[in-house]
């Protein structure tokens, strides 16, 4: 039987999934649900100054890069499987489409972070 290349994508899927499970709810809460702050989080949390400072720092850059790109890789791998589940099978174009989105998100966020 032919060796599958799934391990590459599966590892990205797993890492992103773990990150999303541990950090996801809190991040969504801070960056979206309560982006204005006041209730639980500080009103300054999503200020340009705060966020810029965070993204300027190399540790911060790394964190943001991994979160954004791994979330994307996690998600597209799962979506690819779901498409298979509903009868859209993993042909080359479908795979390119899915993984392409994650690659784009990765590239864009890397580029943006380098600019900050």
């Amino acid at each position, binding site marked *: 039987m032919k060796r599958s290349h*799934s*391990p590459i994508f*599966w590892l990205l899927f797993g890492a992103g999934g773990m990150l999303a499970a541990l950090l996801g709810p809190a991040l969504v809460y801070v960056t979206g649900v309560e982006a204005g702050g006041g209730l639980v989080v500080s009103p300054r949390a999503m200020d340009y100054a705060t966020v810029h400072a965070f993204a300027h720092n190399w540790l911060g850059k790394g964190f943001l890069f991994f979160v954004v790109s791994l979330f994307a890789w996690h998600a597209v791998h799962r979506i690819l499987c779901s498409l298979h589940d509903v009868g859209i099978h993993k042909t080359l174009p479908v795979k390119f489409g899915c993984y392409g989105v994650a690659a784009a998100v990765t590239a864009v966020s890397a580029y943006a972070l380098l600019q900050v």
Partner: protein
Amino acid sequence: MRETPARIVEVQVLRYRPEEDEKPVWQSYAVPFTEDMSVLQALQFIKDELDGSLAFRWSCRMAICGSCGMMVNGKPELSCQTFVRDLLPGPVRIEPLAHLPIEKDLVVDVEPFVKKLESIQPYIIPKEPRSLEQGEYLQTPHQLEQIEQFSSCINCMLCYAACPQFGLDPQFLGPGVLALLHRYNADSRDGGRAQRMPLLNAQEGVWSCTAVGYCSQVCPKHVDPANAVNQNKVESAKDYFLRFLSPKGGRA
């Protein structure tokens, strides 16, 4: 000790007679119900008294031979271990195991499963040879525990009826066979891992599994095949990346 039947239960059976039916049809039977009647006994009543042409497999009646799996009210079950009293008031709906080709009535095609089972080298490939005169290999209870659960598989294929990924791709080795493969790989006496790795590594090996997990839920013997499949994804991934480093992992 024939007791007077308390009541009649309707049993609906999905029937398929290859020599006359284009596709399966439902047929309904009235079965007198007794308190300790299993679904298998209900079918036996139908076959003995109402309709001798109904085909289904069974033998041990004690949930160990693995013959009598079928869908009971939509769930994969061993019919000898499923009791009509738990399904009242009915009707009880019985279908052949899902995802498997129907040969006749409740009889599904087992051959592809057996072929897969044969393909995984399901026997000890000794790590170190030992003659009979040297006696048994030593194996501690702890080492035994590593395989005991996975060696309890009765090949009933309920997990195949539970696994949609098998339904979508019948080439998938599937939970039961992969559990058995793991049982040998994890055996302290076995050294055949490298020979079995290519099977795990394939798309039809562990990589078709999307961790649905229903296989383990329906397994009547607590084999936990989902665990066997998914922990081997880690093994397969290691094999994928480390094959260039270690001489053993290298074979595709």
